[in-house]
């Protein structure tokens, strides 16, 4: 199977649509088992392990995050938050067809709302994708918030 640039771009669009529509079980299926979702705290942070990040979660933690959203006693999600991504056409930064490894870079605006509050985040998402058994999967995802060092209230869904 050959992966085209359009396949990669469609993948990124489909992923944010899953997040916006709350199709989290489908979203978790996109991930390879040893992947990490990383949201650095510091601008241009290089080390996810020995300084604090906003998020650095493996599949167990992502699954926990998703399960919790639907829990009967998840008080901060009563009522539930909603989110919305507006994305720019992804850049394809690396296209190694032989290795089945691809890297995209996508600028997005993310809006999250709950009750009377709504906030906007500008971010750049870097996806490392791999072709496994004929399907594109997420090997790693890095989300750099433009204002990652600012003080935030609750960010409850996934930018």
């Amino acid at each position, binding site marked *: 199977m050959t992966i085209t640039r359009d396949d990669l771009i469609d993948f990124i669009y489909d992923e944010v649509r899953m997040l916006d529509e709350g199709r989290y079980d489908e979203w978790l299926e996109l991930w390879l088992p040893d992947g990490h979702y990383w949201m650095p705290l510091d601008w241009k942070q290089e080390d996810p392990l*020995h*300084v*604090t990040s*906003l998020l*650095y979660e493996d599949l*167990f933690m992502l699954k*926990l995050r998703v*399960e919790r959203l639907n829990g009967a006693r998840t008080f*901060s999600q009563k009522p539930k938050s909603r989110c919305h991504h507006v994305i720019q056409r992804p850049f394809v930064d690396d296209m190694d067809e032989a290795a089945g490894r691809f890297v995209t870079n996508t600028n997005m605006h993310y809006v999250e709302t709950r009750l009377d509050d709504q906030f906007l985040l500008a971010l750049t998402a870097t996806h490392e994708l791999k072709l496994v058994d004929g399907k594109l999967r997420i090997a790693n995802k890095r989300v750099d918030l433009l204002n990652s060092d600012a003080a935030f209230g609750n960010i409850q869904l996934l930018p």
Partner: protein
Amino acid sequence: MGRYTDNPQAVAALVRGREVHRDVYIDPEIYRLEMKHLFANAWVFVGHDSQTPNKGDYFTTQIGDQPVIMVRHTDNEIKVLYNRCPHKGTKIAIDRTGNTGKFFRCPYHAWSFKTDGCLLAIPLKKGYEGTGLEDQQTGKGMKAVGAVHNYRGFVFARLAEEGISFDEFFGDSLSSLDNMVDRSPAGRLEVAGPPLRYMHQCNWKMLVENQTDTCHPMVAHESSAGTAVQIWKDLGYTEDDPKPPAMEIIAPFMSPYEFFENMGIRTWPNGHGHTGVHHSIHSNYSAIPGYFEALTETYGEEKAKAILSENRHNTVYFPNIMIKGPIQQLRVFIPLAADKTLVESYIYRLVDAPDELLARTAMYNRMINAPTSIVGHDDLEMYERAQEGLHADGMEWVNVQRLYEEDENFDEERVENGTTERQMRNQFHAWVKFMTADMTTKEAAE
């Protein structure tokens, strides 16, 4: 001027043995008085000296609502100065950290100051000749806070020129800071990266009280910790199976009431206290290879064991920080308004200890205390609901009476059942003491 200004009796009447009046959380006048009296007269955490390792390094923050600069002076001592040019009021530095070299230079009119605040130079100074500038505070330079104390790297300041000494204010409570620092084989901590910054639309004291509230984890955090335990079970593991670090961190939040009752709470004079006298949620973390050996090398086996056998959970240093000795975390609750608090959560590296310890600490910080944390979300939800709920008329008092006793004496150290709210009462006892310490009565003020 409202009900409470210059009225120490009215302020003291907000705290009863078993309950406190809602105005301590919601009244803007009380907030202003806290800044003027409580935060000026107490010893307040500023920063860690590893944030400014070299001469001229500075760090900007605030003590209460007062903007300050912590800076390493040319004599290597840490100075804490008000972040205000004595000329027109311009903040001298606004980046969070930096190096200013041998002097600060105001960007507005180029007045310059040594890093201890002393005036160095004013351009076109002849314009001030004969005007008496040298006799004014303006002519002396940037104002320093009343007193500064660097305790094993942790820098505290008292804004007031006169008042309680550092040693008397903290007393034996410093044993928690000692244990955190002793855990380094070099006896030294270093800050690891910038802090998490988490904005809370609630009063700062709700956060401080929550640090020793041992009856909320299994309720408020059931959605995160309880779900984690359930997923773990669904994967086919039992409680005795070795857990990955994330599970070691989050699962103990679901411990039963008995666990928290038996962990114990210790209170010290002046509003300090800690949970986890006998054990805590940090007790059962896996040993990191090489760490005990490194500690033993420094301290000998007996003392190394004694250091690691302390697993204090949360130590509150009144008024507004909490430390976790076993994981080298410090959280500062910065009051921005009656209903607005900035929480900054720092982590520290144990110098000469294996990096795996720091990795666990960093994981704890982001998992539990980030604005993106599935644990923090439910805490903040509770505080903000309380901040709104307190406006309900007809019930103006907030209850703090769990395991209350008549005639409690907060001037003595005590160890109690781990679910007591004695530490919250201890904080309010200290709150009245430092709010009213230098408050003149209306008659005296006139």
